[in-house]
């Protein structure tokens, strides 16, 4: 039993089109997902523009993580489309691609940063190998070049390069998260999904990671979908904010506008429940 009907797919006629001829990198429409009878996503539409950070906020169980799973294709929605603009300007539905092609696209164009770095890293191999491996998967074989790339990326995420041969199991939580970010960015992706990237870290470690993310996103002109329950994180990193409740988007807007002048009752509750978002 699917609790919603599929809607027409007209990504490029998005209502947030600024008339500049640019097209959204990601155009999601009518996304529905249910775990048995429990609805996790109900008719979700959203767009992500090149170079834009979109935060998805909401409490636990609001469907945020399910949404990320459906975007990358790890979860198959019961209805809806996830339209992705490929480098050659074609829009493909991530869920109608063949498995091989979807995996290829994920490797070249997508990054996925998990909340728990242990889910996104290979803990038994060295930090350098963790960063070099995605490049090897893309066909790079020159050891010296791979090692130089790994060293460069460790430096960019503020991991001392003399730790390049240490396995991440010996790293602190903050270092592991920075390593996971390096592993995801080394392939020069066009869009990165992040699920609570600062969750579970000490406040001072969070601040460092947020500053790092802020700079990397700006320098690399990355598009990011950032799932967070922390409105301060959204304020700091995101251009736009989407608020989810019970699997639905209840409000969307520029981050500062949604936080400073929330329109929906649920957003008002969220904003008023935290200290100085």
């Amino acid at each position, binding site marked *: 039993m699917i609790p919603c009907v599929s809607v027409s797919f007209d990504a490029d006629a998005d*209502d947030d089109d600024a008339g500049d001829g640019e097209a959204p990198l990601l155009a999601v429409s009518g996304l529905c997902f249910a775990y048995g009878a429990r609805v996790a996503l109900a008719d979700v539409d959203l767009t992500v523009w090149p170079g834009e950070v979109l935060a998805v906020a909401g409490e636990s169980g609001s469907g945020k993580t399910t949404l990320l799973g459906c975007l990358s294709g790890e979860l198959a929605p019961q209805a809806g489309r996830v339209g992705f603009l490929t480098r050659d300007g074609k829009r493909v539905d991530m869920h109608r691609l063949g498995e091989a092609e979807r995996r290829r696209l994920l490797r070249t164009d997508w990054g996925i940063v998990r909340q728990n770095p242990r889910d996104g890293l290979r803990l038994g191999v060295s930090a350098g190998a963790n960063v070099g491996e995605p490049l090897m998967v893309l066909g790079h074989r020159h050891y010296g070049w791979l090692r130089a790339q790994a060293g460069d990326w460790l430096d960019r995420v503020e991991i001392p390069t003399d730790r390049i041969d240490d396995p991440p199991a010996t790293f602190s939580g903050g270092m592991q998260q920075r390593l996971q970010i390096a592993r995801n960015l080394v392939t020069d992706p066009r869009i990165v999904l992040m699920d609570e990237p600062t969750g579970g870290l000490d406040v001072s470690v969070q601040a460092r990671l947020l*500053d790092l993310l*802020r700079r990397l996103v700006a320098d690399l002109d990355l598009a990011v979908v950032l799932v967070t329950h922390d409105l301060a994180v959204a304020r700091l990193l995101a251009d736009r904010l989407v608020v989810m409740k019970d699997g639905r988007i209840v409000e969307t807007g520029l981050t500062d*506008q949604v936080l400073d*002048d929330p*329109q*929906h009752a649920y957003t008002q509750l969220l904003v008023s429940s935290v200290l100085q978002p």
Partner: protein
Amino acid sequence: MTAAAHKTDAAAASPAMLEVSGLAKTFTLHIQGGVRIEAFRDVAFSVAAGECLALVGPSGSGKSSVLRVVAGNYLAQHGSVKLRHRGQWVDMATAPHRRVQEVRRLSLGHVSQFLRAIPRVPAVEIVAEPLIRLGEERAAALARAAALLARLGIGERLMQLAPATFSGGEQQRVNIARGFIAEPPILLLDEPTASLDRANRDTVVALIGEAKARGAALLGIFHDADVRARVADRTYSLAKETAR
């Protein structure tokens, strides 16, 4: 509500940069029983290039809310906020999000009352950021930011620190520098001199004068009557018949 604009002929010939008409803002507090609070209504004014319009009115009359609606930080229920952006009119009340962001980056500066400090980011970088986003080379942007902060009395050592621990007046000067550095064609100022000493007030008055001289349109709130008299060409009064 009474609203009156007293126009001098100082900027009469210059083109309008900002045109606000029929603007109304009401907050609906859903989690407090849906109570509605009117911030302002029937607000209309225009600001020309090279001109400074001061919003006046008692506390609670909605002056800051008007600035925030113009900046796209608050949503309006009625009316339009037309800004001249790259030679075209953009209505901030209805423009798509990405257009509002572009206007903020290229055409609009907003000096709010409080600085939002970012952990670990030094004051000089916070000030340089609008320039860097316009494509200015990083070193040059930082040099200009340092010069502007020095002019506002923020020393070399202080500007290399994150401003979270700065005093109110120091944070305000960082905010002012960030608003002025990119020389936006339209500039919103929310009590820019509220916690400044005499010397720094004079510096801000000079910065406003320079912005007007290069053709910027300024819309501001100035509680200090002396400052207001020195910078404002006209005033627009937001007065409420009933206190809120």
